[in-house]
């Protein structure tokens, strides 16, 4: 019974924790401009994150060590440094976007400008990272994030033309008003949002935090293979809501306040309450995860003592690194930069960093010295190789598309 509860809780938190500010904004922008014409990218991205997250979870459960520790040892300090630089800088950008997202969500509830909420949000993240148990912070934000299901409910309540929506999803086409390059720019951005590097580092470090062993491999697979796809359904529902309400009125999403309008239209204040709670939980949860991920990656590369399972005094450099990251994030946001713009840039640069993040995981998962009998099978390697090609193509295309389209303008 306890095991069933643990599996169910893991799945629910994986669903609630799947969506972050990058998914929210990018799916809403795409829905408001392309309808469900890019839903196929979400499907590809979700399968990709499932493949690599369960791989990194397996590495952690079998070796008892987080992915980054093994990468540095297996590939050496130079390759490890390239991996660290790419993933750390992208995750720092993502921390900034998530803290900004928390501030924007609080603005929706209070109409007080985000500038006032940014320090509060960062302090809240720090105090939770400092004081709360790992399982508590993961479960509470994940379960509250389930409130985002209201987007799926709202989509049904809006009574859309399902034939048209399914048609957009199954026969994707570039709308007449949008350049082809912009369509592909958002395809890369959506892919980057779904496969954000911090997710795998957090997943594998979390496995060590929670003391996973080989016995937990089935639970790990269930969390990933059930939870993440259902999280992907939420992403498509967000795009669907924007496609039904905003696209016909030529409202291209540029702010978080526009994202919730379809929910209010469908279900009034009650539904809107769920949406705001869900967005707050999703962004706050992701802010916690990204902040922890920066600490994990730095500490694991540099060989520092790390982890929430230790008292802060026993992992002092790990905690100081996270405080510095939060201060940098606040500093960036204090310049007045739009958190939504930071989010859009972070998901594109996530795509650029993907090969440096995912190739080492694939190499380690194939090393019998670490994995023993749990090395990747042929089927898994075939899928992973296909994804590696997609990841490299997306990484190479990201910057040229950013330049050609003027960041999707």
């Amino acid at each position, binding site marked *: 019974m306890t095991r069933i509860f643990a599996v169910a809780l893991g799945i629910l938190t994986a669903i609630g924790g799947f969506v972050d500010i990058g998914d929210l904004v990018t799916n809403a922008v795409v829905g408001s401009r392309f309808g469900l014409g890019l839903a196929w990218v979400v499907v590809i991205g979700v399968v990709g994150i499932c493949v690599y997250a369960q791989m990194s979870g397996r590495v952690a459960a079998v070796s008892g060590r987080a992915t980054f520790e093994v990468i540095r040892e297996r590939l050496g300090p130079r390759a490890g440094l390239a991996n660290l630089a790419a993933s750390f800088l992208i995750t720092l950008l993502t921390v900034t976007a998530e803290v900004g997202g928390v501030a924007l969500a609080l603005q929706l509830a209070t109409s007080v400008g985000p500038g006032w909420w940014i320090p509060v949000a960062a302090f809240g993240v720090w105090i939770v990272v400092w004081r709360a148990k790992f399982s508590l912070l993961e479960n509470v934000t994940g379960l509250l994030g389930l409130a985002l299901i209201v987007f799926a409910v709202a989509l049904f309540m809006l009574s859309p033309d399902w034939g048209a929506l399914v048609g957009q999803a199954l026969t994707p086409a570039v709308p007449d008003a949008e350049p082809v390059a912009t369509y592909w720019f958002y395809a890369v951005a959506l892919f980057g949002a779904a496969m954000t590097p911090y997710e795998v580092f957090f997943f594998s470090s979390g496995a060590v935090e929670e003391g996973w062993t080989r016995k937990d491999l089935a639970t790990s697979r269930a969390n990933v293979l059930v939870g993440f796809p259902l999280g992907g359904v939420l992403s498509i529902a967000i795009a669907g809501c924007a496609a039904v309400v905003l696209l016909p*009125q030529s*409202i291209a999403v*540029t702010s978080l*306040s526009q994202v919730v*309008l379809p929910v*209010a*239209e469908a279900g009034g204040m009650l539904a*809107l309450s769920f949406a*705001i709670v869900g967005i707050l939980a999703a962004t706050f949860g992701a802010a916690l995860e990204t902040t922890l991920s920066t600490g994990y990656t730095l500490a694991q590369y540099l060989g520092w003592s790390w982890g929430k399972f230790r008292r802060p005094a026993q992992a002092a450099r790990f905690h100081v690194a996270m405080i510095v990251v939060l201060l940098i994030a606040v500093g960036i946001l204090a310049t007045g930069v739009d958190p939504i713009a930071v989010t859009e840039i972070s998901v594109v640069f996530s795509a650029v960093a993907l090969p440096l993040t995912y190739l080492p995981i694939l190499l380690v998962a194939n090393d019998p010295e670490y994995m023993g009998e749990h090395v990747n099978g042929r089927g898994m390697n075939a899928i992973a190789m296909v994804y590696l090609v997609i990841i490299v193509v997306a990484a190479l295309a990201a910057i040229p598309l950013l330049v050609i389209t003027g*960041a999707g303008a």
Partner: protein
Amino acid sequence: MAAALLLAGCASPSDQVTDAIDQAVAATATARVSLDLDERGRIFRTTSTTAVEDARREAADAARTVAEVDATEESEAGRRAEALDALDEAVRALDAAVDALAGVGDPADAADRVAEAEDALRALTRAGHP
């Protein structure tokens, strides 16, 4: 990013005006939807205020962009002038909407004004895309 901004800055004057009008159409439509939801009691006042304030910022940004466009032909100068008139009216209508949500002025009147500003901008959009 710098390259992207550079490239965006290299768009033709006509394209810059068209993009700015599209941006303002989205902003006024957002405000119209928000005010409508507010009138029907389907949205928190805090959320509708945030949405309309965001819309005003977008419209003001669009107006600033058009004001800084250097026309190279007579027809471009004429279109820029038309766009500036419509954008200025949109910003004023959105000012009125923000005030109305704060209790200064009638929200219904503000909603009408926003809808008129949106119509004027949409007419310009059609004129720009024969």
